[in-house]
């Protein structure tokens, strides 16, 4: 027999605290679709995705209904297109993106990730073709997401790729100028990209992954916030150690939900279950915010002094709880701080609590990085590349994943508002310091060597 407390507290999480499964992402390998002929490749890709994923949305909805936990997004992640479609030109890569978009629409998933390249140590032909195709591919499709890994702890930072991505981001923004540079919201630049991320825009299916696999991304910042509020209201003398314990237990519960639903979806589709990604993923709704957790822990706002310490504690507690809840944890697994996607963080940016520099500092202790950060439209390419380089350096040296999802909003200046819509939300454009001063450094190019692994200070 269940206890009243078990039932009522679970209902509270669902009804008032925005607990949901943020995404069930079906990874599909495209490596066996490879061909030197574009039409053959496209038809194989379409056939494989629509065949494997035809029941994904229905099954997710059925399992969500069974447990009373909504699966908000159903997504697909494919092998890096730069590898699977290596023989093709940039124009042909755009047509591959269109095929992915068609397939995604046909099976009714929200996004398809994997228009991706891994170039931390250099470019292959397919990588160059794919990267150059990104602006057009993201502009002419709705559901395709792109990611490029330009750095790793073992390879260092490919600064040629960093510079190129600065140009690509700028071009992608210009191609969607009428939508505040929306294409850039579907593009992530990574260091140490994991092979099993279920979240967009970074999701792709790594080479070491199964042919087909389910990875699940949970949510639950609202649940964590409410748990902290309840505990502090009941006992104002709780210490940070006590509160860390509460976050840990809450993360455990949230992760269990994700794993239960992910495994059942995988079983029903008769495919492997991969990982649960523990990331606290906010939405632009009141009560579903990572930023609000900072206020519950005593800060005036995210961005105030103390924010990096709070985020470090939050991230660690989430990992500890999640790791106990599931033996198969992966992806990014931390707290997201996406500026426009979190109502409270966007407000902090608007109120001047949060600067680009403070955000960058915070990314050294969280997953994933400078996420959904709107920049002035006239930010030079070299400055964008330098911001990416700084973010990559944090990931490479700290042996963690970091990413940059930057949106230079065409025609808009710092302090103005950029609107992306839906889960992507809206944000005040953050000022960028010392525009233009990074040009000479960025133009040097080459690869910043991999760091030593023994002298760790």
């Amino acid at each position, binding site marked *: *027999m*269940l206890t*009243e407390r*078990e*039932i*009522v*507290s*679970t*209902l509270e*999480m*669902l*009804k008032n605290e925005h607990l949901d499964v943020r995404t069930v992402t079906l990874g599909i390998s495209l490596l066996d679709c490879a061909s030197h002929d574009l039409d053959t490749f496209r038809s194989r890709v379409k056939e494989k995705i629509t065949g494997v994923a035809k029941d994904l949305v229905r099954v997710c909805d059925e399992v969500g*209904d*069974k*447990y*009373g*936990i909504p699966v908000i997004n159903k997504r697909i992640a494919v092998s890096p297109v730069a590898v699977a479609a290596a023989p093709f030109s940039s124009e042909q890569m755009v047509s591959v993106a269109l095929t992915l978009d068609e397939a995604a629409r046909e099976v009714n998933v929200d996004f398809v990730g994997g228009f991706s390249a891994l170039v931390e140590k250099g470019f292959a032909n397919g990588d160059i073709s794919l990267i150059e195709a990104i602006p057009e591919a993201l502009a002419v499709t709705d559901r395709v997401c792109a990611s490029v890994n330009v750095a790793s702890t073992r390879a260092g930072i490919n600064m040629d790729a960093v510079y190129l991505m600065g140009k690509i981001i700028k071009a992608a923004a210009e191609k969607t100028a009428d939508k505040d540079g929306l294409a850039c919201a579907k593009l992530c630049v990574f260091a140490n990209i994991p092979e099993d991320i279920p979240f967009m825009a970074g999701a792709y299916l790594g080479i070491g992954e199964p042919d087909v696999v389910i990875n699940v991304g949970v949510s639950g910042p609202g649940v964590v916030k409410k748990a902290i509020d309840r505990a502090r209201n009941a006992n104002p003398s709780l210490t940070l150690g006590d509160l860390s314990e509460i976050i840990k237990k809450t993360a455990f*519960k949230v992760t*269990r*939900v994700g*794993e*239960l639903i992910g495994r059942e979806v995988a079983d029903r589709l008769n495919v492997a279950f991969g990982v649960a990604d523990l990331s606290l993923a906010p939405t632009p709704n009141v009560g579903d915010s990572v930023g609000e957790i900072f206020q519950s822990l005593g800060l005036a706002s995210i961005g105030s002094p103390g924010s990096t310490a709070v985020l470090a504690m939050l991230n660690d507690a989430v990992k500890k709880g999640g790791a106990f809840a599931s033996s198969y944890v992966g992806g990014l697994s931390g707290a997201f701080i996406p500026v426009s996607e979190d109502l409270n963080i966007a407000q902090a940016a608007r109120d001047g609590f949060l600067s680009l520099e403070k955000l960058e500092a915070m990314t050294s202790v969280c997953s994933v990085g400078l996420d959904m950060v709107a920049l002035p439209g006239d930010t030079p390419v070299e400055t964008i590349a330098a911001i990416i380089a700084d973010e990559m350096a944090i990931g490479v040296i700290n042996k963690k994943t970091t990413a940059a999802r930057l949106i230079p909003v065409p025609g808009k200046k710092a302090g103005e508002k950029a609107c992306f819509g839906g889960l992507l939300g809206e944000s005040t454009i953050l000022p960028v310091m010392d525009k233009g001063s990074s040009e000479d450094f960025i133009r040097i190019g080459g690869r910043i060597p991999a760091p030593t692994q023994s002298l760790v200070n």
Partner: protein
Amino acid sequence: MNVQKKGKKIVISVLGTDRPGIVALVARHLFENGCNIEDVNQTRLQTELAAIFIVSIPDGLEAHGLRSLLQDALDPLGLHVLVKEMVTDERYVHNVEGEPFVVTTIGPDRLGLVAGITEVMADFGVNITNLRAVFRGGTDPARNIMIYEVDIPKDIDQERFRKALKDRAEALGIDLNLQHRKIFEEINRI
């Protein structure tokens, strides 16, 4: 003393205002008469207690005799006793394969709430295994929660059942959730 789990089984239910010592009194009389308690459950609603015992009784002891004996003992406490022989009616043996679900309704209290929801369950052959009211509504109707633990036969049209329940809840002006029991276990139990 060795326990004999054979022979006749009887069901004893005790009802009355709760106070310390009720179960102890019943158990002592059962023990003194050679009866073995095989199963027992008790619950308290507001100030009232209901307890149900399934007991195997020794040869020679009859149900009506035991009832008189217990009633004499419990009368001074204002308690009522019902004793009946346990008979398995094959018509109602729940051998249909089912899955455990939890139905919760949240909303203002009103006449016919339980009748309305349980009628739908009965129509679909869904068996209630546990039923509780968690909060008395008071000034906050959202705090009025009913919990039904149920077994849903696998062979019924689950979608139709879900819809029928939701429609009935809407007609009654309450919010209804139907969730597999496993979600509560996964979240709360290691």
